[in-house]
């Protein structure tokens, strides 16, 4: 069994592009395959974070929305898309 660590990032109350910047900085410190779970409140993050991940070689595993909170799980890539 392979253990993959999940890192949490609280980006609530931040407006885009700040959640994207926080995700970018957090992913820079992760090894490929590690998971980042970011919680946001800006609905713009639902578009912006996946768009940023697509162009920068990371993979969005899933997104969930409950009340005013959005949770996005991202698998860190190697940065060489």
């Amino acid at each position, binding site marked *: 069994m392979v253990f993959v660590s999940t890192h949490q990032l609280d980006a609530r*109350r931040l*407006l*885009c*592009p*700040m959640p*994207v*910047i926080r995700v*970018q900085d957090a992913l820079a410190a992760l090894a490929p395959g590690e998971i980042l779970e970011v919680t946001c409140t*800006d*609905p*713009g993050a639902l*578009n*912006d974070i996946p*768009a*940023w991940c*697509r*162009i*920068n*070689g990371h993979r969005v595993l899933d997104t969930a929305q409950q009340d*005013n909170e959005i949770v996005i799980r991202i698998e860190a890539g190697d940065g060489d*898309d």
Partner: protein
Amino acid sequence: MSKQPKAVALISGGLDSLLAARVLQEQGVHVEGINFFTGFCVEGHTHAIRKQDQAKPKRNNALWVAEQLGIKLHIIDVIEEYKDVLLNPKHGYGQNMNPCLDCKGFMVRKADEWIAANGFDFIVTGEVIGQRPMSQRKETMPVIQRESRAGDRLLRPLCAKNLPPTLPEREGWVDRERLYDFSGRSRKPQMALAAQFGFTDYAQPAGGCCFLTDKNYSDKLVDMWQHRSSRDYQLDDIMLLKVGRHLRPAPNYKVIIGREEGENNFLEGYRNQFIHLRIASHKGPLALIDGETSEADLETAARVAARFSQGRDAGAVEVEVNYTDGRQQTLQVAPMALDAIPQEWYL
């Protein structure tokens, strides 16, 4: 150079930087994008806050441009460093509080630092001579090169033929003959080039990607500075200037009143930092009090907030005053008549 040359393009999300980057890609240059967040960027914010705008499709244009180009985009938080640009612009302000020339020099300098740290060869911008009255003039082009310290590592592909050859042209990394000689305020050459590249859905070139070019926003910023002991600011300060009605009944305080549900929700996030008012007896806005207030001031603020509630025509409205230490007080106030609110209170 046997390896593929590498350039970083300043991507604003507008058409010019999209085209500039694409022109370089056409010549086989490896391009990545860089976008600086100053805190004053219009991109996304008001859409995110206002409920009525939330149904509209939201897109960060810089990310969209990068995706169209198939390039990486590095978004850099420069909020702290940008303060010096805004507070002490060597070249002054434009029509409002926009320090465009200093801003451009700053961003190119940051890009120059970035290429040095990341092993890139040169910088690309979408500047066009004569496009902007303050920052994109023939005289300002060398100023930006000099003050950013990027020198001839800065290439402007859309107007390069009107300027002396730069390092990437001299080194043969880029063919000068395949660059452009655009100038002036006309957008037609850019639109024709966009059509040639097959770009159709680009952001309209309105020139308004920064709140500092907005008169109303600039007025509120100046008012904030005038009523504080220092011109320093935090991100929260400049975010709050984008939200709600701002009224200043007296020099010692102002009232920020949410205009709709989305703004009220946003202001809720600041309720621990400010005295805030809630309309208890009717449906109404959340109001924050920014400044030191007396009881009489709070009553005035409550009457103003009540004016924007559904109790505006009632004889009395119950307003909850919530202090930052958790204390709470309820006031019964008569909503202020609309024509009793002096126009000069509105910021």
